[in-house]
């Protein structure tokens, strides 16, 4: 788990100092660094960029890419785009829900897994597509999901 620090926020802000309107870019970096947008960080961003906290909050809640809650150790994203849908992506998603015992958008109580849906990853020709911790897997089936989860368990 990454810890909050004023140092991080300085580094991130500095990276985007040439950006006229850096709010979104800064929040994207925070999201990818912490896996979510910690409240303390949003307050700091609001102060340092001189943007009202209400605007920071409206940006945080408008975009699907942001989360206000901590994510699990492993993030599993199941594609629900059209190409994956017509190839039975919904069965893959249902199987993930059953196996992890959570709904899409939720995190397991032990903070091990977060399950997300995503609208197309651009790997449509090889769908159903699932991304685990940034790694793409094509031609997904329920048995491949079992295999994938076992592998994650073994490795951690």
């Amino acid at each position: 788990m990454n810890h909050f620090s004023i140092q991080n926020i300085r580094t991130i802000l500095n990276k985007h100092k040439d950006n006229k309107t850096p709010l979104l870019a800064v929040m994207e970096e925070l999201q990818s660094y912490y896996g979510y947008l910690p409240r303390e960080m949003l307050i700091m961003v609001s102060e340092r960029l001189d943007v009202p906290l209400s605007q920071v909050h409206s940006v945080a809640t408008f975009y699907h890419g942001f989360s206000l809650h901590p994510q699990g150790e492993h993030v599993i994203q199941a594609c629900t785009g059209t190409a994956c849908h017509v190839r039975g992506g919904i069965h893959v998603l249902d199987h993930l829900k059953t196996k992890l015992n959570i709904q899409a958008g939720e995190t397991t109580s032990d903070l091990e897994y977060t399950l997300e849906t995503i609208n197309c990853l651009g790997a449509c020709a090889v769908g159903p597509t699932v991304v685990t911790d940034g790694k793409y897997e094509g031609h997904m089936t329920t048995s491949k999901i079992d295999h994938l989860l076992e592998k994650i368990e073994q490795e951690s």
Partner: protein
Amino acid sequence: MKKLDTPQELDAWRESCKNELDHDRLRLRVCDGTGCRALGSQHVLTALRQAVNGNNVEIMTTGCPGFCEQGPLVTVDPQQIAYQQVTTKHVHKIISDTLGKGEVISELLYVDPSNGQPVTTESELPYYKSQMRRVTDLNGQIDPHQIEHYIAHKGYMALSKALYDMSPDGIIEEVIRSQLRGRGGAGFPTGVKWKFCRQSPGDEKYVICNADEGNPGAFTDRSLLEANPHRIIEGMIIGARGIGATEGFIYIRSEYPLAIENLNIALNQAREHGLLGKNILGSGFDFNIQLRLGAGAFVCGEETALMASIEGKPGEPRPRPPFPAQEGLWGKPSNINNVKSWASIPSIIANGAEWFAGVGTEKSKGTAMFSMVGKINNPGVVEVPIGISLRELIFDAGGGIPDGKSFKAVQFGGPLGGCIPAQYLDTPIDYESLTDLGATMGSGGLVVADESTCMVDLARYFMNFTQEESCGQCIPCRWGTKVMLDILTRICNGQGEKGDIETLEQLANTVKTASLCGLGQAAPNPVLSSLRHFRDEYEAHVYDKRCPSKVCWK
């Protein structure tokens, strides 16, 4: 590397790059695009690198040539032997048999489903034979991480011509005469749009590349961004010169990490070589490009929402006029085009407007890129002349429908588009014909449906998507899509009632006319077009409690 200061220095560099890129060399070209990666290409790549270690064989990683379904793809040069579905267990055989003894491994060849014959070389694949690759010609042929490869293939030559041999007005005239129409959806003439922006008063102007590709299941932009980012960058610099812009933005969705990586590398290379930034190629023209990432909102593909997002706000569209050419990014005149539109520019400048307009139909010129998915044998990306028939697109390039099933319809333009049924298979594909049939060119994303696809279920799927993606500013879109979705869900659950179809139709027309932006105005399209062509399927669900395709229930 020293910055290039003159067109002559660029020419000299091109000659040396050409010599480097020796075409007779023993070389393995490995696709490293998103599709092939998802099928394990990186394991193949590692194994190949280890196996050829020390031998005189070059391994080139390329972007996506479009033939994703058959990946991982490995092509052996100079013979262009095209291997498909390669796994690590094939690596030693490729090295020992093909590289060592010049033998072709038949089990790795593509088998033409129409005659059962294996196909040996890349250029003989039926998939490529039916295409005309003008924008995508280098996809899969060059390493997108090496600017030298693009330079060797005449890269940035059009830019040099635009800067030194043409006036800004001349650039715009050339694009107007080519009759290029925007490839992002609406099909507005690109040159005309540039002219509006050029004529708008102000010294600060912006050009924007729309790489948001939000249509789920479309990936033409991705394949270009990954496989040949320099062509897009070159197009933007030429456009900026014509319009008089000093800064450019590429707004790209964050779901495309590989495209982002390749773009960043390309932008840095262009800057290092003096092709981007201050005093480009010594011409005195200054222009830079910054990358901006989306954060997962479909509506941000709409141009006014996209600009709001670059400004760091929620991506909420606003009414037009004022158009971006009058009041765009930070209130300044701005010009926004799709990835494919920008990528079409260098060859128009290099080869002339007549060359570009030499293919196509009366009102739609050039080639178009399509990504095809769904019930089709060769899902992937193709580029074909505008005006070929749907039949040629789906049965020649796409390889037809799998499992001996029959073709039912094809959805153009995803959640904002419409479907075209089998009786129109011989319709030429151009902007007007598709609109007449209730569909749209969209951004080139096609979903093919066969007899086992339920059109009502597909309409429900799209409505679910647009309802979730509605930004919620205006009531017709926010509530209209919700009520339409509720009715469709009921129909698909076998609980449709008399009057539902009529209510759906009425609501669809209201949402279409009363919504604020293009999302709400187009969200009812999948419903209206499937009602137009497949009303019987709706009626079977509602009145006979029967799903003819047995998708909603058996």
